[in-house]
């Protein structure tokens, strides 16, 4: 039993050390998409908001792989992160808007309600812009990677 207690304590110490060594970063931009890869072309995994704390899994240049609360992970550029704790905005313009956006809005990249209303009120067709958005969304990461590799362009 004594040995077991020692082992348990040792395990706890190791676990504690592991937890303590996990690097945290905080989102400093208002809303930022976490993506499945290290470029805008990759699908959005989720959206995080200012003040959210994220756990760093790895880094590659300016891109940071972060652990999400649901166990998945994704990539975010360090331009949107702070190594210091960032407070969330105290007052939001449209309470609930950010949450709604995170669950539905920008992921689909259709027109936002405000833009829909604007187009309708002005008698403007939203089809041309929607077609451009659809075309952009149809570009797959593999096509983008092939394009930048062939031309030796894109951020290194």
């Amino acid at each position, binding site marked *: 039993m004594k040995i077991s207690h020692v082992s348990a304590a040792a395990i706890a110490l190791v676990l504690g050390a592991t937890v303590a060594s996990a690097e945290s970063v905080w989102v400093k931009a208002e809303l930022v998409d976490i993506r499945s890869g290290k470029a805008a072309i990759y699908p959005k995994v989720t959206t995080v908001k200012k003040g959210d704390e994220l756990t760093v899994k790895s880094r590659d240049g300016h891109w940071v792989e972060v652990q999400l609360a649901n166990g998945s992970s994704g990539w975010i550029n360090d331009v949107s992160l702070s190594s210091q704790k960032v407070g969330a905005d105290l*007052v*939001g313009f449209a309470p609930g808007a950010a949450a709604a956006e995170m669950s539905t809005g920008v992921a689909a990249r259709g027109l936002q309600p405000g*833009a829909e209303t604007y187009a309708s009120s002005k008698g403007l067709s939203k089809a041309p812009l929607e077609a451009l958005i659809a075309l952009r969304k149809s570009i797959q990461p593999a096509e983008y990677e092939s394009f930048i590799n062939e031309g030796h*362009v894109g951020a290194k």
Partner: protein
Amino acid sequence: MNFKFHVPLLLASCTLLLFAGCNNGGGLDPNTASALSPLIGQQNAQFLSAGMKGVNAAALSTKDEDALGQSIAVALTNQYPPVKNDNLQRYVNLVGLAVASASPNPGGNWIFGVLDTPDVNAFSGPNGYVFVTRGAIEHMQDEAELAGVLAHEISHVCSHDGLNQIKAKEGTAALAEAASAADSRLAQLSSMSDAGYDVLTKTGYSQNQEFAADREGVKIMAAAGYNPESYLAFLRRLQSQQASSGGKLMSTHPGIGQRVSRVSQELQSMPHSGATLAQRFQNNALNLH
């Protein structure tokens, strides 16, 4: 070539121009709003100068900004329909994404498009909507020139000039009021879109904002692996054609000569190397119609 050299808009690249004249850190003061009123309408000018009590820019969420960008893009693509050439649109998106990967917002929601007009121009709206005209592409000779123009626009988008100016001026006093007025909010977003679109298509950024976008743009394109000399070559080509066209510049915009001079100076401290990809540009940007 049916070349309409649209000097006032020449690469004026008007990100949401609630922001015109906002480069001095002072926000949109009543004098500026007054000056803008002939361009954006008295009502919009009053809206901007009245402190924007409804839609306070400090309160604009990313969603609001996206709606604003989309609204302006809807209006723009109604005036200038996108070129009906998916291969070209795809190509410009790939170049834009490559450039954006080296921008301050590499993971942003970037949407690129080519507008079917012979005018030589480029536009950018809030939250990543970037457009270049067929006329501009027809005056380019390689992919790096296209990358340079897109980088200039991307720089404008990343700067959030006007939003930041208005945020600084307005503070947070009106947030609660704005949050409780959802209908008013939509109406005001619409009004802001009108104002932004009107200014975008009739005037441009301030000289300093254009200079800054040129300066940052060449850095972005170079960081993306493109030769920044190509952007200078494009500007010089436009400069020479402007002279033969007898075009005049709006007083609020920088002369193309000044921009050439400043970009040339900027490049002196940068490596003169990088991809130009003339052949790939020719293969993908021909047959625009």
